[in-house]
C-alpha cells in the first residue's frame, strides 16, 4: 500500500483514539462535576440509603425543604431521609427518562408534586433541555418499549444516541471543559455551573419577594407555554400516559407513590377553566393512588412570581408536605 494511504489511515485512527481519550479525560469529568442531570443519575446509581423518599417535581418544588420534612417525620418517630429531586420544567414525559434509575435506587416512596402544566398536551418537548441534559446520558438511560413509544423519532435520537453519535455530541463541551478547568485554577474569570449532588440539604428559599398581582394576571391572560392556564381535555396525551405508567411502574416494584398538586397562584388559578379542572381531577382519580390537593392552600402573597414560592410559601408548603408524609408513611410503618 502506498505510504500516503497508510498515513491517512493512521491519521484517522489516531484522531479517533485521541478524541476518545480527550472525551474521557477532559469532557466526562466536566460533565460529572457540572451537570445537574448527570449528578442526578450518579446519585440514583450510587445511593445506598435504604430509607429514602424522593420528592419529584419541577422548579416550584425547588423551595420545599427536605431537611425540615425529615425533622418533622423524626418528631413523629418516622425515620426517613428526604431527597428533593426537583428539575426545572419537569413533566412526567421528562421524568420517565429517569424512571428506571429511580426504581433501581429503591426508594421507599416517591412523592410526585405535579400541577396542571404537568399533564398538558406535549406539543412542546423542550429540545434545548434534552440536548443540554440528557444527550450525554444516553448510554445510561434505560427505556422499555412503552417508554420509547412516548417519544417521537427526533426525541429518541437525543436520549438514545449510539456511541459514535454520543462521542461527537460530547465534543461541544471541550471548550467549556477547558474554560471550567482554567477557572478552577484561577487563571480566568468564568462562572461555573453549580450542580447539586446531595439533594437533601436545606432548600427553603430566602426570597421575601411578593409577585405583582397585576403583572401575574397579564401573564395569565397571555397563556404562554410556560405559564398557566393550560387547556386539558379528557383525551389522552403523552404526559398523561407517562404519569400513568410511572405510577404503575413504581407500584409494581413495591415503591409507594403519592401524588400532590402543588399550590397555584390564585391569580393564575382564576383563569383555569372548570373543564380543565374536571379533566385533571378525573385523570388523578384514575391513577388510584394517594392524592393530596394543595392547589388553594397559599394566598397571592406567598408567591414570588406567577408560580414560584417565596419564603413564606415555601415554609407553608413544606409543613403541609411533611404532614402528608407523616400520614402516609405512618400507615406504612404501621
Amino acid at each position, binding site marked *: 500500500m502506498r505510504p*500516503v*494511504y497508510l*498515513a491517512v489511515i493512521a491519521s484517522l485512527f489516531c*484522531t479517533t483514539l*485521541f*478524541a476518545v481519550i*480527550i472525551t474521557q479525560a477532559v469532557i466526562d469529568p466536566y460533565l460529572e462535576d457540572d451537570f445537574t442531570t448527570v449528578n442526578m443519575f450518579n446519585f440514583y446509581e450510587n445511593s445506598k440509603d435504604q430509607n429514602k423518599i424522593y420528592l419529584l417535581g419541577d422548579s416550584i418544588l425547588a423551595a420545599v425543604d427536605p431537611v425540615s420534612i425529615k425533622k418533622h417525620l423524626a418528631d413523629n418517630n418516622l425515620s426517613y431521609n428526604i431527597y428533593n429531586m426537583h428539575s426545572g420544567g419537569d413533566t412526567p414525559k421528562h421524568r420517565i427518562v429517569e424512571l428506571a434509575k429511580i426504581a433501581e435506587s429503591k426508594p421507599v416512596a416517591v412523592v410526585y408534586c405535579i400541577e396542571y402544566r404537568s399533564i398538558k398536551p406535549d406539543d412542546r418537548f423542550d429540545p434545548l433541555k434534552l440536548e443540554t441534559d440528557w444527550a450525554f446520558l444516553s448510554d445510561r438511560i434505560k427505556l422499555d418499549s412503552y417508554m420509547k413509544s412516548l417519544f417521537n423519532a427526533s426525541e429518541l435520537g437525543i436520549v438514545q444516541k449510539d456511541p459514535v453519535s454520543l462521542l461527537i455530541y460530547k465534543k461541544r463541551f471541550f*471548550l467549556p471543559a477547558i474554560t471550567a478547568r482554567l477557572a478552577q485554577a484561577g487563571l480566568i474569570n468564568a462562572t461555573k455551573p453549580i450542580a447539586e449532588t446531595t439533594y437533601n440539604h436545606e432548600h427553603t428559599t430566602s426570597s421575601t419577594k411578593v409577585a405583582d398581582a397585576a403583572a401575574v394576571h397579564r401573564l395569565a391572560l397571555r397563556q404562554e407555554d410556560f405559564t398557566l392556564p393550560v387547556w386539558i381535555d379528557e383525551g389522552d396525551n403523552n404526559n398523561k400516559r407517562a404519569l400513568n405508567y410511572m405510577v404503575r411502574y413504581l407500584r409494581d416494584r413495591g415503591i409507594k407513590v403519592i401524588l400532590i398538586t402543588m399550590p397555584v397562584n390564585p391569580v393564575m388559578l382564576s383563569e383555569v377553566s372548570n373543564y380543565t379542572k374536571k379533566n385533571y381531577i378525573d385523570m388523578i382519580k384514575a391513577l388510584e393512588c394517594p392524592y393530596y390537593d394543595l392547589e388553594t392552600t397559599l394566598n397571592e402573597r406567598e408567591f414570588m412570581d406567577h408560580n414560584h414560592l417565596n419564603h413564606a410559601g415555601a415554609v407553608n408548603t413544606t409543613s403541609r408536605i411533611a404532614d402528608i408524609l407523616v400520614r402516609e408513611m405512618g400507615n406504612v410503618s404501621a
Partner: protein
Amino acid sequence: MSPLDVMSLVLVAAITYFGNQLMIGCPKRRGIILFFVVLVSVGQLAMFKYVSGVPLPIGISYYTFMGMGYSIDVYRGKLQPTSSPIEHAVFIAFLPVIVSGPILRAKDFFGQLHNRVPDLQRGITLISIGLIMKFVIADNLALFADPIFTTPLKFGSREIILATFAFGIQLYCDFGGYCNIALGVAQILGFKFPANFNMPYLASSPQDFWHRWNISLSSWLRDYLYIPLGGNRKGELRTHLNLIIVMAVCGLWHGSTLNFLVWGVYHGALLSVNRLVRLPGSRVFSIAGLLITQYLVFLGWLIFRVRDPSKLAYCLEKFLVPTGFSITDIALGVVVIAAILLARDAIIDRDLIREISTTKISYWTICLTAALLIVYLISPVKYAPFIYAGF
C-alpha cells in the same frame, strides 16, 4: 439538488454546449450565436438573482460564468470545444466546485481531463486546511460577528469595528476554506487547478488585493468583461470607467441588493484611485500601503455585510469614528499588526500547500492528525452555511 437546481444546470450546459458546436459549425455566425448564448445565460442568472421569490439554484453564479467563459474562448478561437456532451456536462457540473466555486476555466479542465495525475497527499492537505479555515476559524468568528450585525444598533464603535474585522476574516476563511476543500477534492481526482486566494490580507494596494482575492472571479471579469470593454487601451477616462463598470458587475454578481452594488462601485473607485496614486516601492511605503489597503478593504466588508441602509449608516459612523477602545485593546492591536508585518515577508507568495504536502510522510501524518483533531474539537456545534454558496 432540487428540480430547479437541475433544470438551471441543464439549461446552462445545453445552451453552452450547442452554442459551442454551432460556433464551430457556422464560424461566420459565431458572433450572433455567442450573443444568444450570453443572453440566455445572463438572462437566467438575472432572473433567479433579481426576481424576488424565486429560489436561487445552488452554484448558478459559478457554472453560468464557467459556461460563458468556455463559449467566449471558443468564439475567440482559443479553444476547441469538446464534442462529447458528457464531458461538457461534467465540466459545467463539476461537483467539487459547484457550490461555491472557484470558477474554472475550460482550458484548465479539458487540458487535464484525459491525463489526470491524482495527488492524494496534496489533495488531503488542501482539504484539511480548508476544514480548519471553515469549521474552526470562520464558524467560530461567525458566533461573535453574527449577533452584532443582526442588531448592530445595540452595539458601540468597539464592537462594530471588532465585528467588521471578524467578519472579514470569517469571509476569507469561509470562502477560502471551501475553495481549498474543492481544490483538494479535485486534486484527489487528478485535477490541479489554480488557487483562488493568495494571502489577500497581505495585499499592499487595491490592485494587489484583487490579484489575491477570489482570483477566479477577478480574472474572469478581467478577461471577459474588462478587456472587451477596452481595458486600459481606450484612454485614461475610459479605463477608470471600465474599472468601475467591471467592479459594479462584480458587486451585482454577489447579490441584487443595493449594498452589493455600492460595494462593487466602492472597489471600482479604489482601483481607479490606485491607478492614479502609486506609492514608492520602499519598505515604509509598502507597510503604509498594506495598512491603508486593508483598512479600506475591511471598510468595504462592512458595506458588503450590512444590507439594511439605516443599519449600514450607523455601522459606518461607528467604524469611521472609533471609540470605546481601552489601552489594552490598542496595545493588542499594535501587537497583532506588528506580527502580521513581521510574518508578511516570511510567508507572502510562498506555496505553503506544496511545502506541507511534500514534507516527510511522518511529519505530514502528525500534522494531518492534529488538523483533524482541531477541527473535531474546536468547530462549533452548529455549522454556518457556506457564505459564498448564497451568491
